[in-house]
């Protein structure tokens, strides 16, 4: 078998190729639960459009016997369930893309699972689809999950829905059953959106009404599934609206050429058009629409081109080229739907990244105004969003960005939410409208707390308190720790004798009382800095255990890390880098720790560094490693 051989393939291959070349492309999404027979339907479409090769078919026959659920019949679901793990579980766990073509059209199918926990996959599959095929089991009718699928595809901007009422063979091909399901569904779908709906009765397993009209469904006068998919007119609004082209790349191969490369997301562009570049707002004229195959008289949505502009205006990646008379809006605060896609929940106030079009900016998300129960469409109060939850939130970007409402244009209204540390895509958002300055965001987290500051910093605040004798190596190690943290993007401040005793504590000497006061003040400053969200590195001899304990109690549990640079007196004295030990021995310095003033070594420091055998770089690495292990810094 293989392809049904169109006579043209044999008779006139060039005519066949010419016909094939001019086919257009329809991307659609299929959704349904494990039991609706979705994989069977897709397997059947591939099989019936003759895209299953002999060796695949042989493998399918073998697999059907081993794993199949259809007795001796072919289990078409096995054609499409890919990964080994899910084949064993018998469920599809990710979005899979399939391709087939007919005489009229080429198709891309995004096959997505209907399981509750996999909202993420359906949203992903829907993002590039212009039509959705939603399966229902004729025996069960419109279920909770049918509503969920409809809501999600509408949310993602799909305006054409096919309700495939499957397993008609199991309800005796009853027209009444079909009509009841159609009525139920249309009533519900009206509430959700404005999609155009076609209801088609079929049996994927038997093959009724997939490609050929079935005598079993003689009461049904509409098109078969395939003929509907072949002829449906997909929205062409993208071509008629005003121009949007996100700038991907400024192409400057030599001095005589400067082109703005990008894919036209909406509308069209021709030489002579006046365009406006956002967010700067500068206007210019397009002088050429360059492609490798020659300049174009006009380029339309979907084409990847390189624009040459009449003026040398400043344009860079992330900018948006718009029609001058109808440019996108520019704003930095929005209302948006957020779909959360990661196990680690969405934290209001945490700094994320937004990738919208070709632009990446900082993003913070406010507490959800509400979340949506995708099964009932009820709205609920929610402090956070967890995996697969959908909510409406106020979001703010680190700088103004050009955008269109998602319903107007997916590319300039939809965005990815990226975690700053792992770089994973943790969620997505759909922009609805910009918040006007006048009704500025009312941040619920309006009280800026230590937690809020630390979220903004992207790490926990802490005090890293170095103690040890003079000459032990505290300042050397402390400054290397600070360098390492700084290079990791951690906000730090180093407090040591030099910058504190010359200013804040200028009035203090070295008596025991002054030493206590010295440390008290340093501990209070450290506490304020922790409140400010910093990692404060303190490098003081701090000889007395009680003052160190006092400093520890200024901050919360887990925020104080005591580092003991354990260098014995004889080694520190032998180093005597500042000549202080010699002075003290000569009696020129009094109350010198270790000579005529005691040092109380910590009994249980959080980190102990052997100051004799471990060099400062190794010591700094160990300390940073510990801070990471404690979850303080990334």
């Amino acid at each position, binding site marked *: 078998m293989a392809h049904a051989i169109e006579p043209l393939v044999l008779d006139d291959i060039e005519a066949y190729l010419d016909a094939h070349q001019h086919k257009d492309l329809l991307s659609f999404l299929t959704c349904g639960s494990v039991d609706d027979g979705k994989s069977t339907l897709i397997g059947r479409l591939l099989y019936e459009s003759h895209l299953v090769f002999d060796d695949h078919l042989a493998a399918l026959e073998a697999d059907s016997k081993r794993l199949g659920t259809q007795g001796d019949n072919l289990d078409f679901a096995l054609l499409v369930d890919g990964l080994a793990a899910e084949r064993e579980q018998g469920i599809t766990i990710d979005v899979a893309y399939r*391709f087939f073509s007919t005489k009229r059209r080429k198709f891309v199918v995004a096959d997505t699972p209907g399981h509750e926990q996999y909202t993420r996959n359906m*949203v992903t599959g829907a993002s590039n689809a212009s039509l959705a095929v939603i399966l229902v089991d004729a025996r069960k009718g419109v279920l909770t999950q049918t509503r969920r699928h409809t809501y999600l595809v509408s949310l993602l901007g799909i305006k054409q829905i096919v309700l495939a009422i499957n397993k008609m063979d199991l309800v005796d091909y009853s027209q009444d059953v079909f009509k009841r399901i159609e009525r139920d569904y249309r009533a519900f779908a009206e509430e959700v959106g404005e999609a155009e709906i076609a209801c088609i009765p079929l049996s994927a397993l038997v093959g009724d009404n997939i490609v050929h009209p079935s005598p079993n469904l003689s009461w049904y006068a509409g098109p078969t599934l395939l003929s509907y998919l072949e002829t449906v007119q997909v929205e062409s609004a993208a071509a008629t609206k005003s121009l949007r082209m996100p700038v991907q790349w400024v192409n400057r191969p030599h001095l005589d050429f400067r082109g703005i490369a990008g894919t036209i997301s909406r509308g069209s562009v021709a030489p002579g058009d006046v365009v406006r570049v956002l967010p700067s707002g500068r206007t210019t004229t397009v002088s050429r629409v360059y492609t*490798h195959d020659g300049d174009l008289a006009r380029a339309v949505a*979907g084409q*990847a081109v390189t624009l040459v502009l009449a003026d040398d205006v400043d344009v860079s990646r992330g900018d948006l080229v718009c029609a001058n008379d109808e440019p996108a809006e520019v704003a930095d605060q929005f209302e948006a739907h957020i779909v959360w896609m990661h196990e680690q929940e969405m934290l209001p106030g945490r700094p994320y990244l937004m990738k919208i079009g070709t632009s990446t900016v900082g993003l913070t998300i406010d507490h959800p105004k509400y979340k949506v129960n995708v099964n009932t469409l009820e709205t609920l109060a929610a402090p956070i969003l967890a995996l697969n939850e959908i909510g409406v939130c106020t979001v703010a970007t680190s700088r103004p960005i050009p955008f269109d409402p998602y319903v107007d244009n997916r590319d300039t209204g939809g965005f990815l939410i990226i975690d700053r540390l792992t770089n994973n*895509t943790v969620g997505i958002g759909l922009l609805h409208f910009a918040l006007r300055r006048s009704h500025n965001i009312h941040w619920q987290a309006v009280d800026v707390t230590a937690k809020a500051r630390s979220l903004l910093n992207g790490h926990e605040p802490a005090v890293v308190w170095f103690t040890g004798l003079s000459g032990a190596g505290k300042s050397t190690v402390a400054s290397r720790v600070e360098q390492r943290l700084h290079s990791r993007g951690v906000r730090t401040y180093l407090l040591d004798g030099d910058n504190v005793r010359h200013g804040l504590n200028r009035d203090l000497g070295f008596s025991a009382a002054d030493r206590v006061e010295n440390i008290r003040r340093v501990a209070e400053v450290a506490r304020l800095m922790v409140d400010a969200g910093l990692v404060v590195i303190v490098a003081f001899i701090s000889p007395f255990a009680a003052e160190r304990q006092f400093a520890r109690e200024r901050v919360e549990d887990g925020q104080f890390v005591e580092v003991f640079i354990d260098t014995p007196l004889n080694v520190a004295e032998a180093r005597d880098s500042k000549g202080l030990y010699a002075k003290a021995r000569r009696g020129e310095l009094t109350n010198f720790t270790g000579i005529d003033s005691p040092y109380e070594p910590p009994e249980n420091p959080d980190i102990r560094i052997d100051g004799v055998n471990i060099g400062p770089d190794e010591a700094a690495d160990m300390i940073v490693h510990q801070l990471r292990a404690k979850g303080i810094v990334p």
Partner: protein
Amino acid sequence: MRPLTHLEVLEAEAIHIMREAVAESERPVMLYSVGKDSAVMLHVARKAFSPGRPPFPLLHVDTTWKFKAMYEFRDRASTETGMELLIHQNPECIERGINPFDHGSSLHTDMWKTEGLRQALDKWKFDVAFGGARRDEEKSRAKERIFSVRSANHRWDPKQQRPELWHTYNVRHTPDQSIRVFPLSNWTELDVWQYIYLENIPIVPLYFAEERPVVERNGTLIMVDDDRMRLEPGEVPMMRKVRFRTLGCYPLTGAIESEADTLTGIIQEMLLTTTSERQGRVIDFDSSASMEKKKQEGYF
């Protein structure tokens, strides 16, 4: 205005993907395997960055066992495009003399290709690598992302793949991760051939039928491409009119008997054929989910 044809859509999508990857990566590279998919990918890359040259080198992970005609074609492609060609041969394989006859197809492929690719990416510290794989080739590839994140040891973890929406791609990665990018993900075999036909893209002559010396082993025709081919006792190469649907190491690549010596002939034959493309590759027969395993180990 007429709607774009599916090939126009696919070409524009591939250009968009390449520009995104290059704009957001530090050291991109294109894996160039000399086959028809690489030829298409290279052709699209030239369009994407025209009138400039694609701002990345080509990398051929060589096994020393490719067809002679492939090496000739490869060197010519690099000269004609003016792009830098990097060639990596796994030094351990050279030292141990790894070959398909003594070590079997699985070890041979694993060490030369899978391990060799890892070595090459580490050696030149490439963070983004373009590959010509397509989703229609094999079931486990149907779920592959266009931007596929690999861990420090180049492993592919199906559970760690990022959601991919619209045409907005997340190219960010940590210093120890790398990203494979597949600009031809949504192309089918027919699309590739049709595009080669329309755009008049040069391909290795091995795709066209010609009289070639072959021996038949286990029902597969293997071409005797050089004198390293070990003949079984009594085996005598015979001239047959054959061609190749996929290209790899010559002792591991099955030829098919064919009269198709033109592009339209090839496409016609492909449309009439009854076996899928990958069947010419010996490695797929190892086990039912073998491609998935290979991917987890870092092979494309």
